[in-house]
């Protein structure tokens, strides 16, 4: 089915926001930074391009385990085998299913989780893996497929919300490929307005707060003066850049109203204790908070801590328990708030790790057989899908690639995975290519799915 979209092709490659990194704004350079988020203002002003029935209130939190966690130390342990590593396996609430002994809390909510143990994807390097597992497909230059959060924001975002619809919380931006991303890298052909607002760590948004030395009246007066002068300049000079700056200032005004949502210190202390002290934990809590308050898609990353070519077990002894706790807290919180039915939680990286240890006691990249977890929204709880062989080397049942995964994710969120993008000046793309079928066994609602 083709659906007309109100996008212009030149948004993806020529507008000024594509040449100015979003970080500049958040680094505190208001003028330069304003341009970088200029088009985000469009999220609140784009015409209603989809039926309201699409906007069914579904949301998504992606715990982006960047660097790629080990399936052996998480969802697919192989205890007492040459590849199993030093950590054991524990029983879960689901009879016959074991997970790593590093994950006792997740074991207690297995009836709410869906595990895929049979991921097999192609890229074995981070940049390519991140591309494929956050966009659903490999690049097809010069066209940039939008990242999952951009698609969800575009499809399910609330037009009248002052809260950003796609938020990326990443306190360690030095650590992954995202630091180099420009606005257009995120949303691709959808247009930069569907890129994320970034926060976390050095991406905090302190400049959104009005300085105490500046009164509300003075602030309004200055804004009025700025608006008058820049509009005049814009009109006199027909300046696209000035228009962009103006749009950005409007966007900043919108963000100011929800700035407290980005302040970790304003989160309830009891919740902060429960989620744990680490930056990733705190930002997962913040993700819950943003979703509760109107965001549609929140992606939480923390650099690339899972890339343990060295010190595999020494790092996983810390990272997995942290992940175990935040997944437990998040899923149970969403359930307690009656939000789990409408909120899809996805926890994955860009691939898995090798069954064998390298000389440096690390596990290397391994896309051939790896695992991920989902919970909530339209995903069937208590399911373990697919299997690997006894050493975890190959998938032996239910192989899933990135296409099937994304078809499943979109289906769970009520987004047609096979819809075509019909964008001026671009070839026809499908939201998920190759007509890939969602995994019916993982979906609660399977009516109308392609076989």
């Amino acid at each position, binding site marked *: 089915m083709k659906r007309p979209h109100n996008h212009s092709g030149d948004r993806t490659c020529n507008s000024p926001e594509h040449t100015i990194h979003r970080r500049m704004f958040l680094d505190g350079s208001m003028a330069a930074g304003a341009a970088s988020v200029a088009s985000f203002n469009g999220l609140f002003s784009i015409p209603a391009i989809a039926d309201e029935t699409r906007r069914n209130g579904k949301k998504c939190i992606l715990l982006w385990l960047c660097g790629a966690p080990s399936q052996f130390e998480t969802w697919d342990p192989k205890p007492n085998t040459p590849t199993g590593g030093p950590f054991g396996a524990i029983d879960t609430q689901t009879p016959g299913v074991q997970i790593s002994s590093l994950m006792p809390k997740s074991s207690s909510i297995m009836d709410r989780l869906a595990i895929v143990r049979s991921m097999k994807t192609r890229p074995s390097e981070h940049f390519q893996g991140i591309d494929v597992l956050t966009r659903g497909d490999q690049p097809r230059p010069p066209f940039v497929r939008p990242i999952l959060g951009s698609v969800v924001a575009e499809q399910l975002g609330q037009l009248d919300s002052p809260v950003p619809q796609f938020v990326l919380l990443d306190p360690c931006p*030095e650590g992954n490929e995202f630091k180099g991303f420009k606005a257009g890298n995120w949303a691709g052909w959808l247009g930069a307005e569907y890129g994320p607002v970034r926060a976390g*760590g050095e991406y905090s948004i302190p400049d959104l707060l009005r300085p105490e030395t500046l009164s509300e009246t003075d602030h309004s007066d200055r804004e009025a003066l700025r608006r008058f002068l820049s509009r005049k300049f814009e009109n006199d000079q027909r300046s696209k850049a000035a228009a962009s700056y103006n749009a950005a200032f409007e966007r900043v005004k919108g963000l100011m109203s929800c700035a407290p949502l980005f302040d970790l210190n304003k989160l309830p202390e009891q919740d902060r204790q429960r989620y744990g002290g*680490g930056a990733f934990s705190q930002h997962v809590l913040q993700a819950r908070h943003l979703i509760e308050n109107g965001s549609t898609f929140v992606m939480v990353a923390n650099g690339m801590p899972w890339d343990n070519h*060295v010190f595999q077990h020494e790092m996983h002894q810390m990272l997995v328990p942290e992940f175990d706790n935040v997944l437990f807290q998040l899923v149970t919180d969403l359930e307690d708030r009656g939000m789990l039915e409408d909120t899809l939680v996805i926890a994955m990286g860009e691939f898995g790790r090798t069954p*064998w240890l*390298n000389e*440096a006691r690390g596990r290397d990249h391994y896309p051939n057989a790896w695992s991920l977890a989902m919970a909530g929204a339209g995903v069937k709880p208590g399911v373990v899908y697919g299997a690997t062989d006894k050493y975890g080397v190959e998938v032996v049942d239910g192989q899933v690639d990135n296409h099937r995964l994304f078809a499943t994710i979109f289906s769970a969120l009520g987004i047609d995975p096979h819809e075509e993008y019909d964008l001026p000046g671009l070839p026809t793309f499908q939201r998920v290519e190759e007509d890939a079928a969602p995994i019916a066994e993982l979906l609660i609602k399977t009516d109308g799915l392609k076989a």
Partner: protein
Amino acid sequence: MISTSLSLTADFKLPTGILGASVSDDGTSLVAACMDGIYQADLQSQSSEKIGQHSSYVSSAAFLPERDAVISAGYDGVIQWIDLPTKQQIRKLQLHDFWSWDMAVSPDRSLIASVTGQYLAGDYKYEPLAEREPSVKIVATVTGEVLHSLPHVPSVQAVAFSPDGKFVAAGNLMGEVRVWNVHSGKLAASFTTSDFTSWGIIKSHSYLGGIFALKFTPDGKELLLAGMGPMQDPMAGNGRQLWQKWSWNDSEPCKLDETHKGESGEGLMETVAVHPDGRQFVMGGRLRGGDWNAAMFDLASGVRTATLKTGFRVTEANFTADGQQLILVGAQGQPKKMVDGAFPNFGRVEVYDVAAG
């Protein structure tokens, strides 16, 4: 200055990676702590036999010749005693909830000290959470009685007794060394060196590294520490190969020396051992960059006197009691392909003749 030559005389493999080892008093036998169990190897015939196992990796193993036994520690937190004639387990003690990272035997073999601790995120910048169990335990080898349970900050990764057996020292992830009086269990000294610990500026905002080996000098007055210098990228493993010598018992413990400029490459150093003549020590580990992964150093001057490039990660170095041989053990990368239904052996043992002039 001392000059040393090292000549390879034996090289053989065990089934899985060797994480720790000790040599018998007569220098003919090796007990190896491996990923899949405990092995006893004959250094002359280069044959080996599996004599026991833990439910996870074995981290340390040592002979208790007075009892004709072996004592081992593992990632299951268990200490066990194995009778050598029968190869039967004669005592098992669940000493820790988490791994035994390292175990040391006192010079008179009456005590062992084992260290544990799981690094868990304690705060926003991943400062280690306080210990959930005592990080250092001292156990009587004859009775299995736990004599002291001592506090430290996880993870505690290395432990050693002083040559006179009066002190035990333990070093951790954060580069903190604590020294206790073995008899009283009282803290005798503590100091911290930040030179072994990385906080990932890129890729990961967390701590990594720390002190991976330590030994007292023969006079007991100083401590040799080993590990790797800080890295910006904790995933790189490319910190400098680092040892430091500290005067621990002064009113203000101070660093006396460290790997000399121009004498180190890159890679984690996991073992340090002092030659029986008390004039040299060896440090070994992984080669990440440079031209050696095990080297001898003059204890007094700190000058490097010999280097080795073994081609595998060295996890433990032992000298025979007469000082004439150096035994290095470790692991190469785990083979990817099975041969005849099994993974090829990847635990490594090398024996070198030591000639010091």
